[in-house]
């Protein structure tokens, strides 16, 4: 899946832009509502005025009729708004009175009621027409709609103008507030920037908002995990250095003894034998380190592709491989692995596991010891058991087994302490459980590897 995203702008911009946008939209919405409302009210009010003016004209016309005064009367214009207001009074179809800006023909075709019409040069007028008290009198009162619009524009202006000033002020205030709010984030990034690259101690901020707590806590837990990884790697390097340097130092010392001027033939022979043994030991150590390194690099995914392996066949093959070594030390290998037992795993890796177990049993048991290898299904689980008649281990020693390079004390036979790590690692890879206990059968150590059913 591929997500295409615009690059994220700063949090500041992300907070400020919607805030200002929202304020503008709400303000404009309020302005439109005010405007609509104001227009309706204004229409009502001004229509009321038209009606009022018409009523006045009607009353006045009734009185004027008594005076029997013929001819058209032109009313003077008395106010700046006057040119925008016009009226006409007709009597028996004749124009008897009009305002200066009114024409000679009736402004509206309607006898009674409101109409919006275009007059003169095409200006839009709102006209109210009504009859007089006597039906031969017709009164028209009109007002240019432009004047209404002018009022509406004035209202709109007075609503929108503050926004123009408010927006920059709001942007400035918002910018400051957001900046203040984001201060802990800046402190965090500053604290992170100031750290030495190797520093893995937790980040501590004096004041931390609750929103940042989870992030800082995750960060600290990440640091903690990295630190423990680094520590374990450092320990591994130190241990590996010791394990690798010691045989080499031994080889060197023994070789120098063999070369030494004072050495007699027996000493020389002894030293040369020890040199060879040292080389074998270093070789084995290097092989085990490489195996372990490969295993640790092996992704867990490889288990998904695990094939089915016959545990019995593997045990037989490895036991046959190791039999000559056992014979040379008068050790007895007893193998009980007749029926095939299929387990999930990799043929080579299961072989490495079995070899390490049998090899360990042989290595740490005295000459003439018995080693019993058993493959069976126990409570539905394919199980490999390797037991020996060696010295066994204390509970404490069993608990520490599998720490890389941990070796049980008091053994003349040098081991690297890596065999167990390898066994455990392969076990984990295929979901098999490795357990160490006391062997009731032979008196030494008992190791069981149990695959899931």
């Amino acid at each position, binding site marked *: 899946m591929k997500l295409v995203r615009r690059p994220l702008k700063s949090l500041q911009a992300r907070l400020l832009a919607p805030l200002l946008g929202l304020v503008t939209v709400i303000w404009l919405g309020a302005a439109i509502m005010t405007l609509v409302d104001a227009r309706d009210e204004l229409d009502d009010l001004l229509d009321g005025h038209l009606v009022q003016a018409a009523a006045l004209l009607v009353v006045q016309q009734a009185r004027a009729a008594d005076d029997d005064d013929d001819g058209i009367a032109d009313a003077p214009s008395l106010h700046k708004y006057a040119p925008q207001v016009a009226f006409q009074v007709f009597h028996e179809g004749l124009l008897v009175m009009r305002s200066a800006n009114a024409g000679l023909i009736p402004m509206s075709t309607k006898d009674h009621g409101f109409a919006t019409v275009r007059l003169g040069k095409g200006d839009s007028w709102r006209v109210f027409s009504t009859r007089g008290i006597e039906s031969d009198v017709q009164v028209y009162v009109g007002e240019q709609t432009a004047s209404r619009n002018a009022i509406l524009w004035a209202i709109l202006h007075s609503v929108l103008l503050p926004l123009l000033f408010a927006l920059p002020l709001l942007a400035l205030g918002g910018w400051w507030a957001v900046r203040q709010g984001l201060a802990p984030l800046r402190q965090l990034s500053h604290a992170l920037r100031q750290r030495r690259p190797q520093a893995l101690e937790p980040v501590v901020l004096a004041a931390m908002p609750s929103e940042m707590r989870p992030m800082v806590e995750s960060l600290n837990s990440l640091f903690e995990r990295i630190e423990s990884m680094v520590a374990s790697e450092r320990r591994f390097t*130190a241990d590996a*250095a*010791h*394990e*690798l*340097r*010691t*045989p*080499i*130092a*031994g*080889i*060197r*010392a*023994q070789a*120098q*003894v063999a070369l*030494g*001027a*004072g*050495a007699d033939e027996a*000493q020389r022979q*002894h*030293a040369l034998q*020890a040199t060879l*043994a*040292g080389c074998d*030991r270093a070789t084995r150590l290097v092989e085990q380190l490489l195996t372990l390194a490969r295993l640790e690099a092996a992704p867990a995914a490889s288990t998904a592709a695990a094939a089915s392996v016959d545990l019995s066949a593997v045990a037989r093959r490895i036991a046959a491989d190791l039999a000559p070594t056992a014979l040379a030390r008068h050790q007895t290998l007893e193998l009980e692995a007749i029926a095939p037992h299929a387990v999930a795993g990799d043929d080579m890796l299961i072989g490495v596991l079995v070899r390490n177990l049998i090899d360990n049993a042989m290595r740490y048991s005295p000459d003439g010891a018995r080693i019993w290898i058993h493959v069976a299904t126990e409570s539905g689980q394919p199980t490999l058991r390797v037991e020996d008649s060696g010295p066994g281990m204390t509970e404490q020693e069993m608990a520490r087994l599998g720490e890389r390079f941990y070796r049980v*004390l*008091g053994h*003349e036979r*040098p081991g690297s302490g890596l065999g167990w790590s390898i066994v455990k690692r392969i076990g984990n890879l295929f979901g098999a459980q490795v357990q160490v206990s006391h062997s009731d059968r032979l008196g030494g150590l008992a190791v069981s590897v149990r695959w899931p059913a």
Partner: protein
Amino acid sequence: MRILLAEDDPMLGDGLRAGLRQLGFQVDWVRDGVAAERELASGDYTAAVLDLGLPLKDGLDVLQALRARKITTPVLVLTARDAVPDRIRGLDLGADDYVVKPVDLHELGARLRSLVRRSHGQMQDALRCGAVLLEPAARRVSLNGEAVTLSTREFDLLHVLMLNADRVMSREQLEQQLYSWGYEVDSNAIEVHIHHLRRKLQPDLIQTVRGIGYTVLRT
């Protein structure tokens, strides 16, 4: 010179013991930290070679415990831990030298001789008492510039006495400095060696302090 070797690795320990013996050191070998501390506490050793990764008790703990008990035996730390902080810690805890494995046997011998020399306030490897000159590295002794042939024990005895010149050494002290484990020491062995040394060098070189022991005067 009697050296305590504390090393848990069988092959390396065996090689170092054999190699140091070839170089003329008397070597006792222990394989764990507890034994190392016990043996060093006896004060019978001229110097010690201490591995750090020892079973039962870590070498640094051994060192710390010894120095806390005011035991000043020179200690050469021989270890695989090569990180600078480890070295600093080792030296600060009282190690007199810090050597990372693997080490050349001859270099190890030279470093041990140097430690012993310095712990006895000597600036040079060669020791001189009057007309007698003793060169530990070459294991050579000369009287008025002429080489004198000494047996291993005679050389070691003279070396101990000259290192501790102007100080009286008891017979027990001399025996402890001279013989590693597994040697049956005749009750008059030291006297016999002293007698030989007086005959081969100068009759008045080694003086007997009755009831206490022997001494060599520097001038």
